[in-house]
């Protein structure tokens, strides 16, 4: 029974990690129908920014809480700047182009950012400081659920609820939905579509950076390639849940994480990816739009 609980907690944490990254994929896709392959790299850049700031602040002897807050904010702002820039230079000029062009541009951006960090930082793994302290009240159960697992789960839940509320109840959320439904009509009604898209990229990138910080602190190491591997799984999670849907990204991430955890725990970790992608294939056969995705007619 304890083993079962341990696997559930492990799977949920893994799923929450996927979900945090998947949210950015799904937001961008929901608005401009583009799969932003550079999103995994934004996550990696967030982790690196947090690493640099946190290491510097720790050396100067700042308290842990200050280090976490400053590093988190810096990572979010920095990654948001990257996300905004990527959109400006790689996607906006291709707004009217065929669907394939921005996709290729996104893949190019992904390669560019990876190699940029490789050259500017290092090819090696670097140790990431543990930013999440152990909680005393968790101590008796820490072999089942650790402090960083709890923080990751809570963050994902908070982010999902906040995002859903923002999109449903605020003005900018309304503008986002309008742009998603029909960007030409939204433009005619006086919505600055380009600004809405930029804001979407900024929010998605900041979330990815927070995810990067939490995951790096959880695993304890980063390198320039972490975004690619995490990005692929997160993309699968977004598609699984129905790309374009915020709760779908979280549900998809959780399902993927749990499947992998139980697959490893009860069958064999040799087939971890096989379980994950079999699940994806099965769901896409029966629900082509994903679990919570709306099957819409392709817009012209």
């Amino acid at each position, binding site marked *: 029974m304890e*083993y079962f609980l*341990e*696997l559930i*907690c*492990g*799977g949920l*944490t*893994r799923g929450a*990690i*996927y979900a945090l990254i998947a949210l950015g994929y799904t937001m961008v896709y929901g608005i401009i129908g583009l799969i932003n392959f550079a999103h995994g790299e934004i996550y990696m850049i967030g982790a690196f920014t947090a690493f640099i700031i946190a290491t510097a602040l720790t050396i100067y002897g700042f308290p842990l809480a200050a280090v976490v807050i400053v590093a988190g904010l810096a990572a979010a702002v920095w990654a948001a700047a990257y996300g905004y820039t990527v959109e400006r230079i790689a996607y906006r000029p291709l707004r009217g182009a065929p669907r394939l062009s921005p996709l290729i541009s996104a893949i190019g951006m992904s390669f560019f950012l990876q190699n940029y960090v490789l050259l500017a930082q290092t090819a*090696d*793994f*670097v*140790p990431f400081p543990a930013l999440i302290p152990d909680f005393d009240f968790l101590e008796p159960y*820490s*072999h089942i659920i*650790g402090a960083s*697992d709890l923080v990751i789960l809570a963050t994902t839940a908070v982010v999902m609820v906040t995002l859903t509320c923002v999109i449903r109840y605020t003005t900018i959320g309304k503008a986002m939905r309008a742009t998603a439904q029909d960007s030409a009509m939204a433009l005619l009604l006086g919505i600055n579509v380009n600004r809405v898209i930029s804001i979407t990229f900024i929010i998605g990138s900041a979330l990815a950076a927070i995810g990067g910080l939490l*995951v790096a602190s*959880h*695993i*304890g*190491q980063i*390198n320039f*390639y*972490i975004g690619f*591997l*995490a990005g692929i*799984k997160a993309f699968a999670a977004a598609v699984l849940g129905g790309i374009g849907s915020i709760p779908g990204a979280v549900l998809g991430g959780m399902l993927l994480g749990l499947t*992998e*955890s*139980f697959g*490893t*725990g009860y069958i*064999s*970790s*040799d087939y*971890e*990816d096989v379980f994950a992608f079999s699940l994806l294939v099965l769901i896409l056969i029966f629900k082509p739009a994903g679990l919570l995705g709306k099957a819409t007619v392709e817009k012209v």
Partner: protein
Amino acid sequence: MRLFHYALAAFLLLTAQPPLFAADTIKIGVAGAHSGDLASYGLPSLNAVKIVIDKTNAQGGVNGKQIELLAEDDACKPEMATNAATKLLSEGARLVIGHVCSGATKAALPIYKNAGVVVISPSATSPELTHSGEYPNFFRAIAPDDTQARIDVDFAINGLGAKNIAVIHDKGDYGKGFAEFAKKFIEDSGKAKVALFEGVTPGAVDYSAIVQKIKQSRADAVMFGGYHPEASKIVGMMKRKKLQAAFISDDGVKDMTFIKVAGKNAEGVYASGPKDTTNNPLSIQAFAEHRAMYQSDAGAFYENAYAAALAVVNALKATNGATDLPGLRQALRTEQVDTPLGTISFNAEGDAVGVGFSIFQVRNGQFVEVKQ
């Protein structure tokens, strides 16, 4: 007609061997990648053999005969290796130091075997080359791939008293190969059993499930085949999940990056790695000779090739310059030779005794050799 005579004369001149000169030297072939993308693995061996042969010749050679070096490039390609072998034999090589890559060595060996020529590789680590028993003419001055698994398993069972060992690998050629040997040796030992045999996905965001599974299997030791990034994540997760089992790994983990990344979680981890030769005077001398002769630092397998060449020269001295297979084989097996790798001889299969790996443990942020 006159032109024909000239042509004939030229033809004869080229086919003629200098028979008197040939009788006075012992020809040693050196085969390996001397060009192409793997040349960095082959050229240091060529340099090493040149240095040893020059030294031997300067001291009067073997039994009054000078040693002549014949170099042949195989670019680590099996199809080029067979050509290189045929060419070396036709040029009169009676001993060969090479080849460098396992695939090329395997392709060339049957040709040498038919000719009864002894072959010593400085670097071919494929286990079957010696373990299959097919090539009684083959020796090597490097430990085969399964040696690490054997030394790690011996250490886990006899050194740590482990009874229940979880074997984990990273699904790669190197890690999985190591893990499969480890599994076999654990099962063959009869003293311990394999609690778990599984591969993990490199680069995964979290290894908690596999660590929980290791815990569930009640393993008292974890044997990991792979490299340091996964190893550091797994030991970190083991610490977090309060799993006390000993962690034993291979030389993919015996790297300072592992200690740097895993930090205090690395403490107590065991990893096997090549024996430390930096304090061996012969090793220091060999590297100094390379710098003096080539004005650069020696590369991969330099010490191994140096050791192979010393073993060959020593065996030739023991047989008084005779190059027949039974005599040389006997000499290689019985003679102890001091080399940069330590004092070595060869066992019946052709593997070097005294070359190989030690177990290291992380203590206070350093790898410390564990004396057994």
